[in-house]
């Protein structure tokens, strides 16, 4: 299935759940409401025309500092061309982050049968910081959701064993949140600040 028909098949099936969609450089993306996530994901996995049996990646983004600090133009200073190759169609530029919510949990799905892929973006409010777990559908989501919990502090309802995976128990805060102080040290042993 190509990106257009992928997006159409889901927006037709879940008109209330999908808030927006885009196809950026050949990758279909759907912005999905958090409460409909499991329904959409189950449809993705079980529908014979979609058959997304492989959860490639599950991660999150903290958009709280997005656009506020101008990033140093690394690519410009390094001499690497910023513009993509003219062979890559770029008629539809990236529409930017979801309108609502500080965080976005991002899911990348792939179908080993149909060889197509799809990205789901679920906006998460900072006050909620909770989405439903997909471990019942893809067991591989277990550690990925633990990593998102560890790094961003986003909880997953229904996860069998939600605990830190990279940092140790007793570590305070979630280091990939943009408001985590860069210089903060909290070692298990040795000097602290």
């Amino acid at each position, binding site marked *: 299935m190509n990106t257009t028909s992928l997006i159409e098949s889901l927006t037709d099936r879940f008109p209330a759940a999908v808030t927006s969609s885009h196809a950026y450089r050949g990758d279909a993306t759907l912005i999905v409401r958090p409460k409909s996530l499991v329904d959409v994901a189950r449809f993705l996995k079980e529908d014979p025309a979609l058959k997304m049996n492989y959860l490639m990646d599950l991660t999150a983004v903290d958009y709280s500092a997005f656009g506020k600090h101008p990033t140093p133009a690394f690519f410009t200073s390094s001499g690497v061309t910023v513009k993509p190759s003219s062979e890559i169609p770029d008629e539809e530029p990236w529409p930017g982050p979801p309108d609502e919510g500080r965080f976005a949990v991002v899911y990348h799905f792939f179908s080993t049968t149909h060889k197509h892929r799809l990205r789901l973006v679920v906006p998460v409010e900072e006050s909620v910081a909770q989405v439903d777990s997909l471990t019942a559908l893809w067991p591989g989501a277990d550690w990925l959701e633990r990593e998102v919990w560890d790094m961003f502090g986003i909880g997953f309802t229904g996860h069998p064993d939600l605990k830190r995976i990279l940092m140790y128990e007793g570590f305070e805060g979630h*280091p990939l949140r943009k408001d985590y102080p860069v210089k903060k040290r909290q*070692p298990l042993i040795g000097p602290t600040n």
Partner: protein
Amino acid sequence: MFNDTSFLTSRLDDAVGWARKYSIFQYPFVTACCGMEYMATACSHYDVDRFGAGFPRFSPRQADVLFVVGTISHKMAPVLLRIHEQMADPKWVVAFGVCVCTGGFYDNYATVMGIDTIMPVDVYIPGCPPRPEMVLDGLMKLQDKIQDHGVSGKRVAPEPRPDLFEA
């Protein structure tokens, strides 16, 4: 001939130091990419066996030099400290690579800013990773130290590290 420094004791120190420096049993605590350079140094081309250090022991109880090779994270630090405590005296520690010496280019929530914040270090070998020649140079410096330490393995207190965490 026999003045106030004991002739016999100083010769024993020399003999024991000489024996120890040519029979280094090393414990390689390898966590990262420096391990490749460590292996290159250990293999036949550079051949640490020439220095009597060719026999890595993978039990800290049988080792007398701890080679810390590669970035140490805060989560790993208690494990490293425990390995160090399990080694019998006299023991020496080599910081292999810049991450172990100072934290290297890592300056974040996860990395120990040099293992000398948690344990004494005898020889620092910087580099990312260090060339085998530098490792052999560090090994020879360690041999000199072992020779100097004599029977007791006692050493002068290391220079205190400047406080990293002053505001």
